[in-house]
């Protein structure tokens, strides 16, 4: 059988990569995709734990997370489209009309 720690490590690596991407990427869409990567890491953790614990609850949580991710994607991409209409750019550095 696959050790739980290996699955969790995979999950943590994906989560960290997503978080790192969130910080270093500059394109809004890529940044958003990094968030999706993080959510997937969470899902993997849920599935891994669901394997170890009695009951299917962990699998159901993944189901809910996927639904939420879909809702978030719809709204997020709409926001990004509106951003592009206003500025003709997707670079996150350009989102700076308000400064200290």
């Amino acid at each position, binding site marked *: 059988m*696959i*050790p739980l720690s290996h699955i969790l490590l995979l999950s943590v690596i994906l989560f960290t*990569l997503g978080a790192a991407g969130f910080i270093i990427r500059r394109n809004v869409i*890529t940044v958003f995709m990094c968030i999706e990567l993080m959510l997937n890491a969470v899902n993997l953790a849920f599935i891994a734990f669901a394997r170890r614990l009695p009951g299917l609850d962990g699998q159901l949580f*993944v189901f809910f997370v996927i639904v939420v*991710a879909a809702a978030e994607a719809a709204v997020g991409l*709409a926001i990004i489209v509106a951003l*592009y209409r206003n500025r003709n750019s997707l670079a996150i550095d350009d989102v700076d009309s308000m400064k200290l």
Partner: protein
Amino acid sequence: MEILFYIFGVVAIVAALSVVFQRTPVYSALSLIVVLAALAVIYLLLGAPFIAMVQVIVYAGAIMVLFVLVIMLLNAGHEGPSAHRAKFARWVGPPLLLAFLVEFGVIVWKQYGLTGAASAPALDASPAAIGRLLFKSYILPFEVTSILILVAVLGAVVLAKKQL
């Protein structure tokens, strides 16, 4: 079967690296789809066939399509070098995250060890079993997500439509 986990785990990590380090958004999106597919296979191996399919149908087949469509629509091209001064977070963030990763890894390792198998008595994870649980114990979250989806639909229309 275990070997499949490691193969697809490596695929997922490589593809995730590619999501983060590709400079063209379409390549990032394609890499993310690879991650999703690899995870779907891993879910299958971990005894979650229904979730694996939902992952492919909803995540890879609908959400990521939306991403790809938006990228195509906005013609998001190559990401240039940062025009602004190097942001503080960009220098501090990755080392912090690396520390987090190592810390987390060590703790997980300590807790579950090298060999602590991720197995419980084989569960009936068929769609029927999931459905039963969903409509009995989790009926409220299930119903409430419909409000969430309604909000999302409303929001997409409000924000993206040129004229209401």
